[in-house]
């Protein structure tokens, strides 16, 4: 089994390790495939109105598009009083590959996936 080849899931179990979050502050929002955008945008608007002048949105892999939709939604809600900075990066994620049979060994696989980081901040007028 080479590292780049596709893994036959009938003989192996793939366990995706959770990625380490780079920030732990409450104004950092991580968007996943399961995030409800409408609910989260309400929370973000509340944060910007009451507690923080800036929020950070992080999305990676399948949730890149969702993170951008979310950022645009928050920007639209504030009608120009909030602006955004966008950065992109590549994140290394790890998969644990367990073999069902004794023929193959258990393995670790690293995959690079793209990530987006959006900084939303209040514009000082």
């Amino acid at each position, binding site marked *: 089994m080479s590292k780049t080849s596709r893994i036959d899931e009938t003989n192996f179990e793939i366990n995706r390790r959770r990625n380490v979050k*780079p920030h*732990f502050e409450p104004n950092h929002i991580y968007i996943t495939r399961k995030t409800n955008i409408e609910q989260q945008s309400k929370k973000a608007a509340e944060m910007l109105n009451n507690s923080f002048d800036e929020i950070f949105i992080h999305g990676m892999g399948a949730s890149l*598009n969702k993170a951008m939709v979310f950022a*645009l939604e928050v920007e639209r809600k504030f009608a120009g009083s909030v602006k955004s900075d966008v*950065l992109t*990066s590549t994140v290394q994620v790890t998969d644990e590959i367990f073999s069902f049979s004794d023929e193959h060994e258990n393995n670790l696989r690293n995959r690079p996936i793209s990530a987006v980081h959006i900084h939303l901040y209040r514009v000082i007028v």
Partner: protein
Amino acid sequence: MDNYIPADESVEEAENPFPDPFRDCKTMNVGKNAKFRHIIQHVDRFFEDDSNRFVIFKSIDGATDKAISCVEVFKSQAKIELYQWTKITYSKRVVLWKCLMEGPRDIRATIEVPVIFIVVSKDPFPGEFSCMSMQCSSDREIAFRPLNSSRPKKPTPKKVGNRKVGDGNKWSKPSGEQRKKEMKERSELLKEVENSSIGE
């Protein structure tokens, strides 16, 4: 919506949000079915000419994730240092739904699709455009990392109730010293009792 049919569809394309030198330059449209290999080869050939200094990657049909991945792959394969400037905006798709029945009005639905514009340049961007959206391919730092970022400590659990901990609690398991002390007291008491019984 059973009695409605889509009659007309118009798309309001997103405008290039970058200032003048980057407005009318070569644009690579990255769609859902685009092949990384073809786009990267094309940009490589474009960059071989020294007069071409920058190129724009633009996502179409909501393929923003693919555009980002394409730029990341291109940056990782490039041998020179590249500068990147990213902006997001949206295009509008307006769909007119006509009603088959007489009476109800037609519906005009506006769908906003995110569009990402990424300028990849061989030269650093001019100082007057400086902003936080710019990055360099050699940057290895985590994005928007504050200077003193550390994991917050878990708060110590609050003491609940009047339960005493340690020596004060009579229900807690006695320590070794306490047990020795108790044994000593008991043996002394026994000796006293024995002595008094012998005296009688």
